[in-house]
C-alpha cells in the first residue's frame, strides 16, 4: 500500500514539475496560463491523493481550495489580464529555450543534491517526490529570472508557490490548516496586488515590458 502511495505521489509530483518545465518550453502567454492551470490541478490531485491515503479531512479542503483558487480562479484572472494587456507573445527570453531546458534539468539535479539530508530523515512514503518539489521551486525561480514579461514572472511566482505547497504536502502531509488558510489568503492578496501594480505599470509606461523598468539605478 505504501509503495503504491509513494509511486502515485511521485507521479503527481512529476506531473506538477512537468507543468513547470512547460513554462520554460512554451512561449505564448495563454500557453503559460494553461500550463499553470494544469499544474495547479495536478497539485490539487496530489493533495487529494494524500488525503485519500492518510484520511485527513483538512487536506481534502486544501485540495478543493487549490482547485478552486489556483486551478480555476487565478487562470481566469490571468487570462483577463493577458487580454487587457495585450502585447506580443513572450519576448525573446534572456536564455533561449534549449538552454533553458538544459538548465531546468540541471536544477532538478541540484534539487536532488540539496534535498539529500531531507530524504535521509524522512520515513514517509511520499518522500521520494520531495526532490521534484524542490526542483519545481528552482525551475520556477529560473522562470522568473529568465523571462521578460511581467505576466510570465507572475506565473513563475505562482508556480514557485505551488512548488512550496507540494514540498509541504509531500514532506509533512500539509501544514496545519489554519496556517494553510493564512498562506492561501496571502497568496491571493499578493496576486491581486501584483495585478494592480501591473495595471499601474501599463498605465504609466504604456507597456509591460519589464526591460523598461530600469529608471532607478545606483
Amino acid at each position, binding site marked *: 500500500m505504501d509503495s503504491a502511495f509513494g509511486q502515485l505521489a511521485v507521479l503527481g509530483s512529476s506531473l506538477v514539475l512537468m507543468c513547470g518545465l512547460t513554462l520554460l518550453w512554451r512561449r505564448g502567454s495563454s500557453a503559460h496560463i494553461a500550463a499553470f492551470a494544469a499544474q495547479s490541478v495536478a497539485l490539487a490531485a496530489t493533495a487529494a491523493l494524500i488525503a485519500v491515503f492518510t484520511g485527513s479531512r483538512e487536506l481534502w479542503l486544501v485540495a478543493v481550495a487549490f482547485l478552486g483558487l489556483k486551478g480555476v480562479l487565478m487562470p481566469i484572472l490571468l487570462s483577463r489580464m493577458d487580454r487587457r494587456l495585450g502585447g506580443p507573445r513572450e519576448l525573446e527570453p*534572456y536564455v533561449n529555450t534549449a538552454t533553458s531546458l538544459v538548465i531546468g534539468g540541471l536544477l532538478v539535479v*541540484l534539487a536532488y*543534491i*540539496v534535498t539529500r539530508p531531507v530524504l535521509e530523515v524522512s520515513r514517509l512514503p511520499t518522500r521520494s517526490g520531495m526532490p521534484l518539489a524542490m526542483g519545481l521551486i528552482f525551475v520556477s*525561480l*529560473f522562470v*522568473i*529570472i*529568465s523571462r*521578460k514579461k511581467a505576466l510570465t514572472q507572475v506565473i513563475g511566482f505562482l508556480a514557485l508557490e505551488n512548488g512550496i505547497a507540494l514540498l509541504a504536502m509531500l514532506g509533512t502531509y500539509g501544514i496545519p490548516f489554519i496556517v494553510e488558510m493564512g498562506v492561501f489568503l496571502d497568496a491571493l492578496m499578493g496576486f491581486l496586488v501584483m495585478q494592480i501594480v501591473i495595471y499601474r505599470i501599463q498605465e504609466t509606461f504604456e507597456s509591460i515590458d*519589464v*526591460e523598461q*523598468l*530600469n*529608471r*532607478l*539605478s*545606483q
Partner: protein
Amino acid sequence: MTSAALPVWMVTSYLAGALAACLFPRGRLARWLTATGAVIGGASALALAGAELMRSSLGGGQEAFHIVDPLSAVFLAVVGAIAIPAALYGVGYTRAWEGRRSLRMPGAMLNLFLLSMSLVTLADGIFWFVFFWEGMAISSYLLVMTEADEPGTVRAGNWYLGMTQFGLGFILAAFFLLLPPDGSGDFTALAMHAQTLSPGLRSLVFILALIGFGSKAGLVPLHVWLPSAHPAAPSHVSALMSGVMIKLGVYGVLLFGLRLLGGGPAWWGGLVLVLGAVSALLGVLYALMEHDLKRLLAYHSIENIGIIFIGVGAGMMFLGYGLPALAVLGFVGGLYHTINHACFKGLLFLGAGSVLHATGTRNMEEMGGLIKRMPRTSLFFLVGAAAISALPPLNGFVSEWVVFQALLGGSAIPQREVAVLMPIAVAMLALASGLAAACFVKAFGITFLGIARSHEAREAHEAPVTMQVAMGALALGCVALGAVASAMVPALGRVVAGLAGMPPAPATAVGWSLGLRLSAPGAVGQISSLGILLGLVLLLAAIPVALWLFRASRALRVSDTWGCGRIAQTPRMQYTATAFAEPLRRIFAALYRPTEDVSIDFHPESRYFVQSIAYHARIVPWFERYLYDPVIDRVTAWAGGVRAIQSGSLHAYLTYLVAALVILLGLLLLWGG
C-alpha cells in the same frame, strides 16, 4: 572646598556654562556666563591636577585620588590652564558675532569640548575614554563648523571628522585587542592582560594605537586635516585644538606605551622618534610656505608635536635598552614641551585671532604695520614667536634643551647602528628649530612690522581688554614656564616615575637646584634658565646706563626710509611673505616641487612698461596627492563598481537573489557537509 569635590565642580561648571549658552543665544551676559562656566571648570581642572601633582611630588598619599594619576594630571592641567585664557578671550572675540550668528552652539560646544577633553584624561576604562574622545571630536567639529560660510570650512570639517573616525577605528582596535577574557575594560585590567600577550600582538597594539592617536596628534602623514581644520575654527578654539586637543594624542600614546603595555622593545621608540623627527621637519617646512597666518601656526603645531614625539620616542627607546634614567629625560622633555607648546601655541593662536578680529583677514600679504595699531597684541605675539622659535630664556628653549640632552644621551645606546639615529634626530631637530625661527621672523615681521599693505590693516584696532588679558596671561606663562625649569623637570620626572619599569624615584638623576643639572649616563648638561633670564634683563638694563655714562649721543631724527632715491615709499615696495620664503623654497625645491605662474600685463604702448604682474606660486601637496588621493580614487572606483550592482534590471536583481541562495547552499556543503 575639599579637593574631592573638584571633579564635581569641574563637570558642573562646564555643564552650567553649556546650559547658559543654550539659554542665552546673544548678549553680553551670555558671553560672560559661557566664559565663566569654562573658566571655573578650567580652574577646577587645574586645581585637581595640581593637587595630584603636588601629592605625587611630595611623595605623600594623604588624599586618595583614584581618578587622577600623575600622567593624566599633566594633561588635565594643560586643559585647565589653556581653557581659562581661551574662554576669557572668547568673551571679546565672540562679540563680533553679535547679530550675525547665534552664540548658542559655539558657547555650548566650547564648554562641552573642554569637558570632554578634561574627562578623557580622567577616564580609567575603555568606554568612557572613547566616549569622551569622540565627544571631544564632535564638539570640536561643531566648533570648526561655526563659520561654515567661510570658504573651505566645510571641506576642512569633512576632512577633520573623516580623519577622526579613521583614528577612532585604530584606537578601538588597539583597546579591544587588549581586552581581557572577562571583558573588563578597566585600564588596570587591560594592563594586567597586556602582560600575558605575545610580543607580536603587543607590537600590533602599539602600532594601532600610534596610528590612532597619531592621527589626532597630527603626526605626518596623518596630519592632513590639521592645517585646514585648526584655522577654520574660531581663534580661541584653534588655540584649544592646537594647544590642547592634539596633546591628548600624545597622552594616548603614553597611555598605551607606558601604562597599558608597560613599555616595549626599543624599536617602538625608534618608530615614534622617526615619525616625530619627520613631522617636526615637514611641519616647519610647510609652515614656511604658508601665508595664511593661522594655517602657518597649524603647521607649526605639527612641528611641535614632532618635537614632543622625538622626546617621547627617545624615552621609549632608552626604556627598551634598559636605560631608565635617560628614558626619564626623554619623557620629561616630551611632557615639558607639551606644556610649553600649549602655552605658546595658545598665545599665538589668540594673537592671530586678534589680528583676524582687527583686519578681517588671515592672509599675511594683506597685513603689515600692525605693531603701531595693536601694540600690546604685537608684544604678546612677539613673546610667543620667540618662545616657539626656542629662543632663550623662554619656555620653548628650555624644553627643547631637555629633548636635546636626552638625544645626546643616545650615545649610551649599546647598538651603534641604532645610536647613530640620535645625531640624525638632533640635526633634524636643530634644523626644524632654525627654520621655525626663520618662519616666525616672517610671520611676525610681515604681519606686524613695516607698512600696512591693505586698507583693513591700516584701520586695524587693538583687541578688547578680555582678549589682551588672555594673551598677556599666556605670555607671562611663556616666561614663567621657562624660568621655573629647575622645578618643572624634577616634577615631571616624578610623573613618569614608576611607569613601565622606570625608577620610582628619579630624583637621584634629576635634582633640585636653582640650576638644572642633568647627569644621566652619556649626557651631562647644566643650565640655569632663571640665571639666563636675570642675566639678560640685567645686561639689557645696563646698556643704556653705560651709554649714558660714556655720554653717547642721544640725538634722534625721524626721516624717510631709504628708497634708492625714490621719494615716496609705498607698501608695495616691501618684502612680501612669499618673497621672504623664496630662498628656502628654492633650496628645498626637491620637496616643494614649486610651480609658478607669472602673468604680466604690459602697457599697451610699450612692453617696457608693466601695468600689473600677477604671481602665483604653488607647491606640491605630497601627502594629499600621493597618499590620500590615490586611496580616495581607489575607493571611488570600487564604489563605481559596486554601484553597478544596482543596475536597474529586475532580472539581474532576481538573479542575485538566486545566486546568493545557490552560494549559501554551496557554503553549507563546504562547511557543514
